[in-house]
Protein backbone atom coordinates (compact mmCIF):
# COMPACT_ATOMS: atom_id res chain seq x y z
CA UNK A 1 0.00 0.00 0.00
CA UNK A 2 1.49 3.30 -1.08
CA UNK A 3 0.87 6.47 0.86
CA UNK A 4 -0.31 8.19 -2.30
CA UNK A 5 -3.35 5.90 -2.42
CA UNK A 6 -4.58 7.45 0.83
CA UNK A 7 -5.59 10.45 -1.29
CA UNK A 8 -8.43 8.32 -2.60
CA UNK A 9 -9.03 5.92 0.24
CA UNK A 10 -9.63 8.44 3.02
CA UNK A 11 -12.19 10.55 1.09
CA UNK A 12 -13.86 7.30 -0.01
CA UNK A 13 -14.16 6.24 3.62
CA UNK A 14 -15.78 9.56 4.57
CA UNK A 15 -18.13 9.20 1.63
CA UNK A 16 -19.17 5.76 2.89
CA UNK A 17 -19.84 7.12 6.38
CA UNK A 18 -22.24 9.60 4.82
CA UNK A 19 -23.87 7.05 2.57
CA UNK A 20 -24.60 4.74 5.51
CA UNK A 21 -25.63 7.71 7.63
CA UNK A 22 -27.93 6.12 10.20
CA UNK A 23 -25.85 3.02 10.57
CA UNK A 24 -22.72 5.11 11.04
CA UNK A 25 -24.57 7.23 13.56
CA UNK A 26 -25.60 4.17 15.57
CA UNK A 27 -22.09 2.73 15.48
CA UNK A 28 -20.49 6.03 16.47
CA UNK A 29 -22.98 6.59 19.29
CA UNK A 30 -22.48 3.14 20.78
CA UNK A 31 -18.75 3.59 20.45
CA UNK A 32 -18.98 6.98 22.17
CA UNK A 33 -21.00 5.58 25.10
CA UNK A 34 -18.62 2.64 25.49
CA UNK A 35 -15.57 4.85 25.47
CA UNK A 36 -17.21 7.44 27.69
CA UNK A 37 -17.76 4.76 30.32
CA UNK A 38 -14.18 3.61 29.90
CA UNK A 39 -13.13 7.21 30.37
CA UNK A 40 -15.23 7.68 33.50
CA UNK A 41 -13.82 4.52 35.04
CA UNK A 42 -10.36 5.54 33.98
CA UNK A 43 -10.74 8.89 35.70
CA UNK A 44 -12.21 7.25 38.78
CA UNK A 45 -9.30 4.84 39.05
CA UNK A 46 -6.73 7.53 38.43
CA UNK A 47 -8.25 9.64 41.17
CA UNK A 48 -8.55 6.82 43.66
CA UNK A 49 -4.90 6.00 43.10
CA UNK A 50 -4.03 9.65 43.40
CA UNK A 51 -6.02 10.00 46.62
CA UNK A 52 -4.53 6.77 47.94
CA UNK A 53 -1.06 8.04 47.25
CA UNK A 54 -1.76 11.30 49.01
CA UNK A 55 -3.43 9.68 52.01
CA UNK A 56 -0.85 6.96 52.34
CA UNK A 57 2.03 9.37 52.47
CA UNK A 58 0.24 11.16 55.30
CA UNK A 59 2.24 10.34 58.43
CA UNK A 60 -0.34 11.54 60.95
CA UNK A 61 -2.38 9.34 63.23
CA UNK A 62 -5.39 10.82 64.97
CA UNK A 63 -5.70 9.26 68.44
CA UNK A 64 -9.10 9.78 70.08
CA UNK A 65 -9.29 9.28 73.84
CA UNK A 66 -12.10 8.03 76.02
CA UNK A 67 -13.93 10.65 78.05
CA UNK A 68 -12.75 9.01 81.28
CA UNK A 69 -9.18 10.00 80.54
CA UNK A 70 -8.60 13.28 82.32
CA UNK A 71 -6.10 15.16 84.40
CA UNK A 72 -2.90 13.30 85.22
CA UNK A 73 -3.70 10.28 83.09
CA UNK A 74 -4.10 12.64 80.15
CA UNK A 75 -0.69 14.20 80.68
CA UNK A 76 0.80 10.75 81.14
CA UNK A 77 -0.76 9.65 77.85
CA UNK A 78 1.10 12.37 76.02
CA UNK A 79 4.36 11.22 77.56
CA UNK A 80 3.61 7.60 76.64
CA UNK A 81 2.89 8.57 73.05
CA UNK A 82 6.07 10.64 72.80
CA UNK A 83 8.01 7.68 74.17
CA UNK A 84 6.89 5.24 71.49
CA UNK A 85 9.59 4.36 68.94
CA UNK A 86 9.14 6.08 65.59
CA UNK A 87 7.11 8.98 66.94
CA UNK A 88 8.33 12.33 65.70
CA UNK A 89 5.88 14.71 67.26
CA UNK A 90 2.74 14.71 69.38
CA UNK A 91 0.20 17.53 69.34
CA UNK A 92 -2.74 17.73 71.69
CA UNK A 93 -6.13 18.76 70.38
CA UNK A 94 -8.39 18.99 73.40
CA UNK A 95 -12.17 18.71 73.39
CA UNK A 96 -12.31 22.44 73.81
CA UNK A 97 -9.98 23.00 70.86
CA UNK A 98 -12.16 20.81 68.71
CA UNK A 99 -15.32 22.54 69.84
CA UNK A 100 -14.01 26.05 69.27
CA UNK A 101 -12.77 25.01 65.84
CA UNK A 102 -16.23 23.74 64.92
CA UNK A 103 -17.94 26.77 66.42
CA UNK A 104 -15.61 29.01 64.48
CA UNK A 105 -16.53 27.18 61.33
CA UNK A 106 -20.26 26.68 61.82
CA UNK A 107 -21.20 29.34 64.40
CA UNK A 108 -22.48 29.50 68.01
CA UNK A 109 -25.78 27.86 66.99
CA UNK A 110 -23.98 24.55 66.73
CA UNK A 111 -23.05 24.66 70.40
CA UNK A 112 -26.60 25.58 71.36
CA UNK A 113 -27.99 22.89 69.08
CA UNK A 114 -25.87 20.31 70.86
CA UNK A 115 -27.51 21.30 74.12
CA UNK A 116 -24.41 22.90 75.54
CA UNK A 117 -22.62 19.55 75.70
CA UNK A 118 -19.27 19.12 73.99
CA UNK A 119 -19.42 15.78 72.13
CA UNK A 120 -15.83 15.84 70.91
CA UNK A 121 -13.25 13.59 72.54
CA UNK A 122 -9.78 14.69 73.49
CA UNK A 123 -7.42 13.89 70.70
CA UNK A 124 -3.73 13.64 69.93
CA UNK A 125 -2.24 14.06 66.54
CA UNK A 126 0.77 11.76 66.36
CA UNK A 127 3.31 12.24 63.58
CA UNK A 128 5.44 9.26 62.63
CA UNK A 129 8.98 9.55 61.32
CA UNK A 130 8.20 7.61 58.13
CA UNK A 131 4.96 6.45 56.41
CA UNK A 132 6.10 2.80 56.76
CA UNK A 133 5.89 3.00 60.55
CA UNK A 134 2.27 4.15 60.54
CA UNK A 135 0.67 0.71 60.50
CA UNK A 136 2.61 -0.70 63.45
CA UNK A 137 2.41 2.49 65.40
CA UNK A 138 -1.33 2.81 64.92
CA UNK A 139 -2.09 -0.71 66.08
CA UNK A 140 0.19 -0.28 69.09
CA UNK A 141 -1.50 2.96 70.09
CA UNK A 142 -4.93 1.39 69.64
CA UNK A 143 -4.13 -1.12 72.43
CA UNK A 144 -3.14 1.56 74.97
CA UNK A 145 -5.62 1.93 77.84
CA UNK A 146 -7.91 4.93 77.45
CA UNK A 147 -7.64 5.06 73.68
CA UNK A 148 -11.09 5.16 72.06
CA UNK A 149 -10.08 4.95 68.42
CA UNK A 150 -7.23 5.67 66.03
CA UNK A 151 -7.69 7.08 62.55
CA UNK A 152 -5.07 7.20 59.87
CA UNK A 153 -4.78 7.54 56.09
CA UNK A 154 -4.17 3.91 55.19
CA UNK A 155 -7.40 2.80 56.75
CA UNK A 156 -9.31 5.22 54.58
CA UNK A 157 -7.33 4.00 51.59
CA UNK A 158 -8.30 0.39 52.28
CA UNK A 159 -11.97 1.32 52.44
CA UNK A 160 -11.58 3.30 49.22
CA UNK A 161 -10.05 0.31 47.45
CA UNK A 162 -12.75 -2.05 48.68
CA UNK A 163 -15.30 0.31 47.19
CA UNK A 164 -13.53 0.73 43.87
CA UNK A 165 -13.03 -3.02 43.52
CA UNK A 166 -16.79 -3.50 43.45
CA UNK A 167 -17.32 -0.59 41.07
CA UNK A 168 -14.54 -1.84 38.85
CA UNK A 169 -15.82 -5.38 38.46
CA UNK A 170 -19.35 -4.21 37.63
CA UNK A 171 -18.01 -1.54 35.31
CA UNK A 172 -15.76 -4.00 33.53
CA UNK A 173 -18.66 -6.24 32.55
CA UNK A 174 -20.80 -3.32 31.43
CA UNK A 175 -17.90 -2.09 29.31
CA UNK A 176 -17.26 -5.51 27.78
CA UNK A 177 -20.94 -5.80 26.79
CA UNK A 178 -20.97 -2.31 25.32
CA UNK A 179 -17.71 -2.92 23.49
CA UNK A 180 -19.16 -6.06 21.91
CA UNK A 181 -22.19 -4.02 20.85
CA UNK A 182 -19.98 -1.32 19.37
CA UNK A 183 -17.91 -3.88 17.46
CA UNK A 184 -21.05 -5.54 16.08
CA UNK A 185 -22.50 -2.21 14.95
CA UNK A 186 -19.26 -1.22 13.24
CA UNK A 187 -19.27 -4.64 11.57
CA UNK A 188 -22.80 -4.10 10.29
CA UNK A 189 -21.93 -0.66 8.96
CA UNK A 190 -18.91 -2.04 7.14
CA UNK A 191 -21.06 -4.82 5.71
CA UNK A 192 -23.31 -2.19 4.16
CA UNK A 193 -20.28 -0.50 2.65
CA UNK A 194 -19.00 -3.78 1.25
CA UNK A 195 -22.41 -4.35 -0.30
CA UNK A 196 -22.60 -0.82 -1.72
CA UNK A 197 -19.15 -1.19 -3.24
CA UNK A 198 -19.33 -4.79 -4.41
CA UNK A 199 -19.05 -3.82 -8.11
CA UNK A 200 -16.01 -1.75 -7.40
CA UNK A 201 -14.45 -4.56 -5.38
CA UNK A 202 -15.08 -7.00 -8.24
CA UNK A 203 -13.44 -4.62 -10.71
CA UNK A 204 -10.47 -4.11 -8.45
CA UNK A 205 -9.92 -7.85 -8.46
CA UNK A 206 -10.23 -7.98 -12.25
CA UNK A 207 -7.58 -5.36 -12.82
CA UNK A 208 -5.19 -6.89 -10.30
CA UNK A 209 -5.51 -4.91 -7.09
CA UNK A 210 -3.95 -6.70 -4.15
CA UNK A 211 -6.20 -8.11 -1.43
CA UNK A 212 -4.86 -5.63 1.07
CA UNK A 213 -5.46 -2.73 -1.25
CA UNK A 214 -9.09 -3.85 -1.42
CA UNK A 215 -9.39 -4.31 2.35
CA UNK A 216 -7.77 -1.08 3.47
CA UNK A 217 -10.63 1.34 2.76
CA UNK A 218 -13.00 -0.77 4.86
CA UNK A 219 -10.56 -1.02 7.72
CA UNK A 220 -10.00 2.73 7.62
CA UNK A 221 -13.75 3.29 7.66
CA UNK A 222 -14.01 1.10 10.76
CA UNK A 223 -11.16 2.95 12.43
CA UNK A 224 -12.85 6.28 11.61
CA UNK A 225 -16.12 5.12 13.18
CA UNK A 226 -14.21 4.21 16.34
CA UNK A 227 -12.24 7.43 16.42
CA UNK A 228 -15.31 9.62 15.93
CA UNK A 229 -16.94 7.83 18.86
CA UNK A 230 -13.80 8.39 20.92
CA UNK A 231 -13.67 12.09 20.06
CA UNK A 232 -17.26 12.54 21.25
CA UNK A 233 -16.41 10.70 24.47
CA UNK A 234 -13.31 12.82 25.02
CA UNK A 235 -15.20 16.07 24.44
CA UNK A 236 -17.90 15.04 26.95
CA UNK A 237 -15.23 14.06 29.47
CA UNK A 238 -13.36 17.36 29.13
CA UNK A 239 -16.52 19.37 29.68
CA UNK A 240 -17.71 17.32 32.63
CA UNK A 241 -14.45 16.65 34.46
CA UNK A 242 -13.92 20.28 35.45
CA UNK A 243 -17.47 20.55 36.75
CA UNK A 244 -17.40 17.27 38.69
CA UNK A 245 -13.99 18.11 40.09
CA UNK A 246 -15.23 21.51 41.32
CA UNK A 247 -18.30 19.91 42.86
CA UNK A 248 -16.29 17.29 44.73
CA UNK A 249 -13.88 19.96 45.93
CA UNK A 250 -16.69 21.98 47.50
CA UNK A 251 -18.72 19.02 48.76
CA UNK A 252 -16.00 16.83 50.24
CA UNK A 253 -12.97 19.04 50.52
CA UNK A 254 -10.66 16.41 51.94
CA UNK A 255 -10.83 14.23 48.80
CA UNK A 256 -7.87 15.16 46.64
CA UNK A 257 -8.68 15.27 42.88
CA UNK A 258 -5.99 14.88 40.26
CA UNK A 259 -5.59 17.96 38.06
CA UNK A 260 -7.35 17.79 34.65
CA UNK A 261 -4.24 18.80 32.72
CA UNK A 262 -2.39 15.80 34.13
CA UNK A 263 -5.11 13.23 33.50
CA UNK A 264 -6.95 14.03 30.30
CA UNK A 265 -4.32 14.16 27.53
CA UNK A 266 -3.14 10.61 28.22
CA UNK A 267 -6.69 9.36 28.70
CA UNK A 268 -7.84 11.05 25.48
CA UNK A 269 -5.01 9.39 23.58
CA UNK A 270 -5.88 5.96 25.01
CA UNK A 271 -9.58 6.41 24.23
CA UNK A 272 -8.93 7.43 20.63
CA UNK A 273 -6.52 4.54 20.10
CA UNK A 274 -8.98 2.20 21.82
CA UNK A 275 -11.82 3.45 19.63
CA UNK A 276 -9.78 2.97 16.47
CA UNK A 277 -8.83 -0.53 17.61
CA UNK A 278 -12.45 -1.54 18.34
CA UNK A 279 -13.48 -0.12 14.96
CA UNK A 280 -10.76 -2.09 13.20
CA UNK A 281 -11.79 -5.28 15.01
CA UNK A 282 -15.39 -4.68 13.87
CA UNK A 283 -14.47 -4.16 10.24
CA UNK A 284 -12.06 -7.10 10.17
CA UNK A 285 -14.82 -9.41 11.45
CA UNK A 286 -17.12 -8.06 8.78
CA UNK A 287 -14.51 -8.45 6.03
CA UNK A 288 -13.81 -12.06 6.99
CA UNK A 289 -17.50 -12.85 6.64
CA UNK A 290 -18.61 -10.67 3.73
CA UNK A 291 -15.63 -9.76 1.59
CA UNK A 292 -14.22 -12.62 -0.41
CA UNK A 293 -11.04 -11.34 -1.92
Amino acid at each position, binding site marked *: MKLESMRYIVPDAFHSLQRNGWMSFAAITTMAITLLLCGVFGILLINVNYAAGTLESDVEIAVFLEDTVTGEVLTQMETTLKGLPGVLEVNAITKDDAMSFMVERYGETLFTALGGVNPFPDCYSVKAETPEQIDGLASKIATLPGVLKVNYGKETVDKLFAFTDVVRSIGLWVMVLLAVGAVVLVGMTIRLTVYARRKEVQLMKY*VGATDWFIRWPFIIEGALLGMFGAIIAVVVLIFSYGKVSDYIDSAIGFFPMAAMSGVLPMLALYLILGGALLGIVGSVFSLIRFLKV
Partner: protein
Amino acid sequence: MIIQMVNVDRIYKKQNVTALKGINLAIDKGEFVFLTGASGAGKSTMIRLLFREELATSGQVIVAGRSLSRLSAKETVIFRRNVGMVFQDSRLLEDKTVEENVAFAMRVIERPKKEIDKKVPEILERVGLRDRMKHFPHQLSGGEKQRVAVARAIINDPIILFADEPTGNLDPDTSEELMELLREINDSGTTIIMATHDRNLVDTMQKRVLVLEKGRLISDRIGGWSL
Protein backbone atom coordinates in the same frame (compact mmCIF):
# COMPACT_ATOMS: atom_id res chain seq x y z
CA MET B 1 2.53 -19.75 -27.74
CA ILE B 2 0.79 -17.55 -25.24
CA ILE B 3 -2.20 -19.70 -24.35
CA GLN B 4 -2.38 -23.46 -24.12
CA MET B 5 -5.21 -25.67 -22.88
CA VAL B 6 -4.50 -29.34 -22.34
CA ASN B 7 -7.36 -31.83 -21.75
CA VAL B 8 -9.35 -29.20 -19.90
CA ASP B 9 -12.62 -30.17 -18.22
CA ARG B 10 -14.80 -27.85 -16.25
CA ILE B 11 -17.57 -29.48 -14.27
CA TYR B 12 -19.94 -27.58 -12.00
CA LYS B 13 -20.45 -30.28 -9.42
CA LYS B 14 -23.31 -28.66 -7.54
CA GLN B 15 -25.44 -28.21 -10.63
CA ASN B 16 -24.03 -31.43 -12.13
CA VAL B 17 -23.19 -29.62 -15.38
CA THR B 18 -20.21 -30.34 -17.61
CA ALA B 19 -19.48 -26.91 -19.08
CA LEU B 20 -16.27 -27.84 -20.89
CA LYS B 21 -15.02 -31.28 -21.89
CA GLY B 22 -11.59 -32.32 -23.21
CA ILE B 23 -10.48 -28.94 -24.55
CA ASN B 24 -7.10 -28.86 -26.30
CA LEU B 25 -5.89 -25.74 -28.03
CA ALA B 26 -2.96 -23.41 -28.53
CA ILE B 27 -3.01 -19.70 -29.30
CA ASP B 28 0.01 -17.71 -30.42
CA LYS B 29 0.99 -14.27 -29.31
CA GLY B 30 -0.73 -11.55 -31.36
CA GLU B 31 -3.58 -13.72 -32.57
CA PHE B 32 -7.19 -12.55 -32.78
CA VAL B 33 -9.44 -15.47 -31.86
CA PHE B 34 -13.22 -15.66 -31.91
CA LEU B 35 -14.94 -18.02 -29.54
CA THR B 36 -18.36 -18.90 -30.90
CA GLY B 37 -21.21 -21.27 -30.26
CA ALA B 38 -24.78 -21.23 -29.04
CA SER B 39 -25.73 -19.93 -25.62
CA GLY B 40 -24.58 -22.38 -22.97
CA ALA B 41 -21.94 -23.94 -25.24
CA GLY B 42 -19.20 -22.96 -22.78
CA LYS B 43 -17.86 -19.68 -24.22
CA SER B 44 -18.08 -17.71 -21.00
CA THR B 45 -16.72 -20.62 -18.96
CA MET B 46 -13.70 -20.75 -21.22
CA ILE B 47 -13.09 -17.02 -20.81
CA ARG B 48 -13.44 -17.38 -17.03
CA LEU B 49 -10.86 -20.18 -17.01
CA LEU B 50 -8.43 -18.17 -19.13
CA PHE B 51 -8.93 -15.14 -16.87
CA ARG B 52 -8.46 -17.36 -13.81
CA GLU B 53 -11.78 -16.41 -12.37
CA GLU B 54 -12.37 -20.15 -12.13
CA LEU B 55 -10.03 -23.11 -12.19
CA ALA B 56 -10.28 -26.13 -14.46
CA THR B 57 -11.69 -29.26 -12.81
CA SER B 58 -8.98 -31.24 -14.59
CA GLY B 59 -6.35 -30.57 -17.23
CA GLN B 60 -4.02 -27.60 -17.58
CA VAL B 61 -4.64 -24.00 -18.56
CA ILE B 62 -1.29 -22.42 -19.36
CA VAL B 63 -0.97 -18.70 -20.02
CA ALA B 64 2.39 -17.08 -20.81
CA GLY B 65 4.13 -20.25 -19.67
CA ARG B 66 2.45 -20.45 -16.27
CA SER B 67 -0.15 -23.00 -15.21
CA LEU B 68 -3.01 -20.93 -13.86
CA SER B 69 -4.01 -23.52 -11.26
CA ARG B 70 -0.58 -23.18 -9.66
CA LEU B 71 -0.60 -19.42 -9.25
CA SER B 72 -0.45 -18.16 -5.67
CA ALA B 73 -2.69 -15.28 -4.63
CA LYS B 74 0.17 -12.87 -5.22
CA GLU B 75 0.93 -14.32 -8.64
CA THR B 76 -2.76 -14.13 -9.57
CA VAL B 77 -2.65 -10.41 -8.87
CA ILE B 78 0.36 -10.05 -11.18
CA PHE B 79 -1.37 -12.19 -13.80
CA ARG B 80 -4.48 -10.00 -13.75
CA ARG B 81 -2.35 -6.91 -14.28
CA ASN B 82 -1.10 -8.42 -17.51
CA VAL B 83 -4.46 -9.31 -18.99
CA GLY B 84 -7.49 -7.12 -19.74
CA MET B 85 -11.18 -7.94 -19.63
CA VAL B 86 -14.23 -6.43 -21.34
CA PHE B 87 -17.76 -7.58 -20.43
CA GLN B 88 -21.05 -7.43 -22.29
CA ASP B 89 -22.36 -4.92 -19.74
CA SER B 90 -19.52 -2.47 -19.63
CA ARG B 91 -19.39 -2.55 -15.81
CA LEU B 92 -18.45 1.09 -15.46
CA LEU B 93 -18.74 2.69 -12.04
CA GLU B 94 -21.80 4.94 -12.35
CA ASP B 95 -20.64 7.53 -9.81
CA LYS B 96 -17.33 8.09 -11.56
CA THR B 97 -16.61 10.05 -14.73
CA VAL B 98 -15.18 8.44 -17.86
CA GLU B 99 -11.76 9.72 -16.90
CA GLU B 100 -12.05 8.34 -13.35
CA ASN B 101 -13.33 4.99 -14.58
CA VAL B 102 -10.28 4.54 -16.78
CA ALA B 103 -7.89 5.93 -14.16
CA PHE B 104 -9.42 3.46 -11.67
CA ALA B 105 -7.60 0.55 -13.32
CA MET B 106 -4.25 2.27 -12.80
CA ARG B 107 -5.06 3.73 -9.44
CA VAL B 108 -5.96 0.44 -7.75
CA ILE B 109 -2.68 -1.12 -8.82
CA GLU B 110 -1.01 2.00 -7.46
CA ARG B 111 0.61 3.47 -10.53
CA PRO B 112 2.14 6.93 -9.90
CA LYS B 113 -0.28 9.83 -10.31
CA LYS B 114 1.98 11.46 -12.88
CA GLU B 115 1.76 8.40 -15.07
CA ILE B 116 -2.03 8.19 -14.66
CA ASP B 117 -2.49 11.87 -15.56
CA LYS B 118 -0.44 11.35 -18.70
CA LYS B 119 -1.83 8.03 -19.85
CA VAL B 120 -5.58 8.41 -19.31
CA PRO B 121 -6.10 11.22 -21.85
CA GLU B 122 -3.85 9.36 -24.31
CA ILE B 123 -5.89 6.18 -24.10
CA LEU B 124 -9.19 8.08 -24.31
CA GLU B 125 -7.87 9.78 -27.43
CA ARG B 126 -7.07 6.37 -28.84
CA VAL B 127 -10.62 5.07 -28.29
CA GLY B 128 -12.06 8.35 -29.60
CA LEU B 129 -13.55 9.64 -26.35
CA ARG B 130 -11.21 12.49 -25.47
CA ASP B 131 -14.12 14.95 -25.47
CA ARG B 132 -16.17 12.72 -23.16
CA MET B 133 -13.65 12.62 -20.31
CA LYS B 134 -15.79 14.52 -17.81
CA HIS B 135 -19.03 12.72 -18.66
CA PHE B 136 -20.69 10.16 -16.43
CA PRO B 137 -21.60 6.71 -17.80
CA HIS B 138 -25.33 7.50 -17.88
CA GLN B 139 -24.57 10.33 -20.31
CA LEU B 140 -22.97 7.94 -22.81
CA SER B 141 -24.37 5.71 -25.55
CA GLY B 142 -23.92 1.93 -25.37
CA GLY B 143 -21.06 2.02 -27.86
CA GLU B 144 -19.31 4.78 -25.98
CA LYS B 145 -19.61 2.87 -22.71
CA GLN B 146 -17.95 -0.15 -24.29
CA ARG B 147 -15.15 2.04 -25.59
CA VAL B 148 -14.56 3.27 -22.06
CA ALA B 149 -14.54 -0.35 -20.89
CA VAL B 150 -11.98 -1.17 -23.58
CA ALA B 151 -9.89 1.85 -22.59
CA ARG B 152 -9.95 0.65 -18.98
CA ALA B 153 -8.99 -2.87 -20.05
CA ILE B 154 -5.97 -1.82 -22.11
CA ILE B 155 -4.62 1.06 -20.07
CA ASN B 156 -2.15 -1.18 -18.24
CA ASP B 157 -0.85 -2.56 -21.57
CA PRO B 158 -2.09 -6.14 -21.22
CA ILE B 159 -0.54 -8.90 -23.32
CA ILE B 160 -3.96 -10.51 -23.72
CA LEU B 161 -7.37 -8.87 -23.94
CA PHE B 162 -10.42 -11.02 -23.16
CA ALA B 163 -13.81 -9.85 -24.34
CA ASP B 164 -16.99 -11.68 -23.41
CA GLU B 165 -19.76 -10.69 -25.87
CA PRO B 166 -18.57 -7.05 -25.99
CA THR B 167 -20.99 -6.22 -28.80
CA GLY B 168 -23.91 -8.10 -27.25
CA ASN B 169 -25.81 -4.93 -26.39
CA LEU B 170 -24.82 -2.89 -29.46
CA ASP B 171 -26.48 -2.27 -32.80
CA PRO B 172 -24.63 -3.54 -35.92
CA ASP B 173 -23.01 -0.22 -36.88
CA THR B 174 -21.74 0.45 -33.38
CA SER B 175 -20.56 -3.15 -33.16
CA GLU B 176 -18.46 -2.70 -36.26
CA GLU B 177 -16.90 0.45 -34.87
CA LEU B 178 -15.98 -1.41 -31.69
CA MET B 179 -14.50 -4.25 -33.76
CA GLU B 180 -12.42 -1.71 -35.63
CA LEU B 181 -11.04 -0.52 -32.32
CA LEU B 182 -10.27 -4.10 -31.24
CA ARG B 183 -8.56 -4.75 -34.54
CA GLU B 184 -6.32 -1.74 -33.99
CA ILE B 185 -5.44 -2.95 -30.53
CA ASN B 186 -4.68 -6.38 -31.98
CA ASP B 187 -2.51 -4.80 -34.68
CA SER B 188 -0.40 -3.18 -32.00
CA GLY B 189 0.48 -6.65 -30.66
CA THR B 190 -2.16 -7.50 -28.05
CA THR B 191 -3.59 -11.02 -28.28
CA ILE B 192 -7.40 -10.88 -28.29
CA ILE B 193 -9.82 -13.64 -27.33
CA MET B 194 -13.41 -12.65 -27.96
CA ALA B 195 -16.53 -14.65 -27.23
CA THR B 196 -19.44 -13.76 -29.51
CA HIS B 197 -22.42 -15.22 -31.31
CA ASP B 198 -22.61 -12.42 -33.87
CA ARG B 199 -22.23 -14.27 -37.17
CA ASN B 200 -21.83 -11.11 -39.27
CA LEU B 201 -18.93 -9.78 -37.22
CA VAL B 202 -17.07 -13.07 -37.43
CA ASP B 203 -17.61 -13.24 -41.19
CA THR B 204 -16.40 -9.66 -41.69
CA MET B 205 -13.26 -10.00 -39.59
CA GLN B 206 -11.94 -13.23 -41.19
CA LYS B 207 -9.94 -14.29 -38.13
CA ARG B 208 -9.38 -17.60 -36.36
CA VAL B 209 -12.69 -19.03 -35.11
CA LEU B 210 -13.13 -21.64 -32.37
CA VAL B 211 -16.56 -23.22 -32.23
CA LEU B 212 -17.90 -24.76 -29.04
CA GLU B 213 -20.85 -27.08 -28.84
CA LYS B 214 -22.08 -28.51 -25.54
CA GLY B 215 -18.70 -27.92 -23.97
CA ARG B 216 -16.64 -29.51 -26.74
CA LEU B 217 -14.41 -27.79 -29.26
CA ILE B 218 -15.87 -28.90 -32.59
CA SER B 219 -14.10 -26.57 -35.03
CA ASP B 220 -10.91 -24.48 -35.11
CA ARG B 221 -10.09 -22.72 -38.35
CA ILE B 222 -9.42 -19.34 -39.93
CA GLY B 223 -12.18 -17.62 -41.84
CA GLY B 224 -15.85 -16.94 -41.28
CA TRP B 225 -18.62 -18.56 -39.24
CA SER B 226 -18.37 -22.26 -39.91
CA LEU B 227 -21.39 -23.99 -38.45
